């Protein structure tokens, strides 16, 4: 229970259905915000601040369930934040929410819940879990296409999916807010949380630099021919597809095409150069089945706000996969996830290399 409307309604609906519900919230960083010199105010309004945890507690009291706040500051730092920093330092663009789901919520938190006698863990994700005829568990997009969060859940294993419950996955966001109003929850009109909860000011580069000062290393911004167009203050400031903040000018708008951390080189080029047709993914999770033996037609999504595009995928050795889109896609970004869909079903996913 993050204190937001989705997990609050998830808990309330389960309690209404007569389940024996225990409310758990995770404290993920000091209540003044992680590494925030300015103190608590700047963290206000994001997920899992002290105010949010107290909102969760009020919701639990309103629906009559016990509620506990678990201190996961150390675990969050060791799994999610350290990965986030390492990825940026390596020139990739991390996806911390996916790591948080598979490495914290549905691992450490799940274990804690099982230890307390719980059978399953419910969250406020917009996604659906279904048991197939062959008893395997399938992950599906949430019913609200605009809010769907299955992309962030692709790395859940069968064991994790078997324990996962997503009570709002079958609802639209307006229906969730309506349910919150009907139940009388104070959080009914609370704004949606930001994408990266632990960087409330949105300044990822400054956050990474604070956590890992060694990444702050000057380098060159070059064009596709290797001509130096300018200098930059560290590869952690860039993401593939980025246009703003390059500090170089040319006739046409320039976009980040490639980031090479060893030489601290950032390659830029015009928009058409950003488009690619193929990608390789690692750490692929074929979520409800075995790795396909041959090319498999899928719709593939390469970031949270990307409309899945048709293509075909095949499994490679060492848990990797190769994907070929039917049409070139802009800004295929290393570090982000690629998730393969068959209609609403998640077939699998992995990390873009």
């Amino acid at each position, binding site marked *: 229970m993050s204190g937001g409307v989705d997990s609050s309604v998830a808990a309330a609906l389960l309690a209404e259905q007569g389940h024996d519900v225990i409310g758990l919230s995770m404290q993920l960083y000091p*209540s003044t915000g992680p590494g925030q010199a300015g103190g608590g105010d700047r963290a206000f309004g994001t997920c899992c601040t002290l105010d949010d945890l107290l909102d969760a507690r009020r919701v639990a009291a309103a629906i009559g369930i016990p509620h506990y706040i678990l201190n996961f500051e150390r675990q969050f730092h060791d799994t999610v934040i350290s990965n986030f920093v390492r990825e940026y330092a390596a020139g990739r663009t991390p996806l911390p929410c996916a790591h948080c789901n598979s490495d914290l919520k549905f691992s*450490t938190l799940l274990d804690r819940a099982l*230890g*307390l006698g719980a059978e399953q863990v419910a969250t406020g994700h917009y996604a659906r879990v279904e048991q197939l005829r062959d008893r395997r568990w399938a992950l599906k997009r949430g019913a609200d296409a605009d809010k769907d969060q299955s992309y962030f859940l692709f790395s859940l294993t069968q064991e994790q999916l078997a324990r996962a419950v997503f009570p709002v996955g079958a609802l639209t966001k307006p229906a969730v807010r309506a349910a919150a109003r009907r139940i009388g929850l104070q959080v009914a009109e609370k704004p949606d949380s930001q994408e990266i909860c632990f960087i409330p000011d949105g300044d990822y580069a400054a956050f990474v630099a604070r956590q890992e000062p060694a990444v702050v290393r000057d380098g060159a911004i070059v064009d596709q021919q290797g001509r130096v167009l300018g200098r930059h203050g560290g590869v952690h400031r860039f993401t593939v597809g980025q246009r703003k903040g390059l500090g170089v000018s040319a006739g046409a708008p320039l976009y980040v095409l490639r980031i090479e951390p060893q030489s601290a080189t950032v390659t830029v080029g015009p928009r058409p150069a950003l488009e690619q047709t193929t990608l390789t993914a690692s750490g692929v999770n074929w979520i409800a089945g075995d790795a396909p033996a041959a090319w498999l037609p899928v719709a593939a999504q390469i970031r949270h706000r990307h409309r899945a595009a048709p293509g075909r995928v095949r499994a490679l050795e060492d848990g990797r996969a190769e994907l070929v889109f039917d049409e070139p896609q802009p800004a295929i970004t290393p570090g982000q996830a690629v998730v393969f869909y068959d209609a609403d079903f998640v077939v699998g996913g992995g990390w873009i290399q």
Partner: protein
Amino acid sequence: MQRIYFDHNATTPVHPVVVDAMAAALRDEFGNPSSVHYFGQRAKTAMDQARSAVATLIGGDPAEVVFTSGGTESDNHAIRGIAEALEPTGRRHLIATAIEHEAVLNTLKALARRGWTTSLLPVDQTGIVSPGALRDALTDQTALVSVMHANNEIGTVQPIAELARMAHERGALLHTDAVQTAGKLPVGVRALEVDLLSISAHKFYGPKGVGALWVRRGLRLLPILTGGKHERNRRAGTENVAGIVGMGAAAALAAAKMDEDAERLGALRDRLEAGILRAVPGTAVNGARTPRVPNTTNISFDRVEAESLLIALDLEGVAVSTGSACSSGTLEPSHVLKAMGFPPHRAQNSIRFSLGSANSEAEVDRVIALLPAIVEKLRSLTRAPVRV
């Protein structure tokens, strides 16, 4: 669900006699004790009676008792009030132990930022401060030494009188935070030879929001709250009359039944402790078993997150505690167990059981019976750190 409360070091239920005394005071003694008229005099009289009861509990004179808002204010008042009073003498060194309550530790930190030098005395795994450590830390600049009478987490009792004599030999004063002993053990300010002593009403079946600082007669202490001439110029602000009356009633009750309670609670605590050590493998008592307040035991459960154990027990209706809670109510590794030299995992797998007057053998036996299955379940789910 039948609930069992084993967290009396956090707070105690208010005794019905105290509730009645407070209700009567709220109703009948609304006057301002500073007022000259009949109503003021009545309130003043009620407060004086309470002051006498508190003084009796700790073996001091009523005139030496300053009512405060609780243990934290008393500790702040003692340390800040003495530090500032002695500042012109050049004594700008303060000493405390590493296992003090945050009320003391963070007050020292605040003064350190303002130019005082501070020293923290180490403790070993007994949880008892060695006089030698104090001897080494004392200097001719030492103004005040603050050592808790008993530790809130593990219950160990410190050799206050010996430490006080040592401080006095170097011209320093000694303050003790007796919040965890008042009502549990005899707290005689003369026998302890201290200069200042803090107590809090809600730890001995009184109300929250009221405490006292005992200040040895003749000691110069600056107020930390400035204003009117309340409490002999030592603590400004219209007094919390009903709270003070409640504290007085609680002090009188504690003085009357302390010996009997201590004996009964000591036997219950020993039964609980022995029962847990026998029934649950991988358990150990943290700190010396004597001298210790009779109601407290702090037990380490190997390979268990104390946070989970606390929650699992609460879901079974058993209220216990551990470490110190932070603002959201989550657990921080215990600074006390860390200071005792235990490894971090032990500072995170330890639970405090603190008994009180309403607890029974049946409750102790129920908790002993519950624990093995809960602990076994938690241990079975401890997995290796997740892949990063």
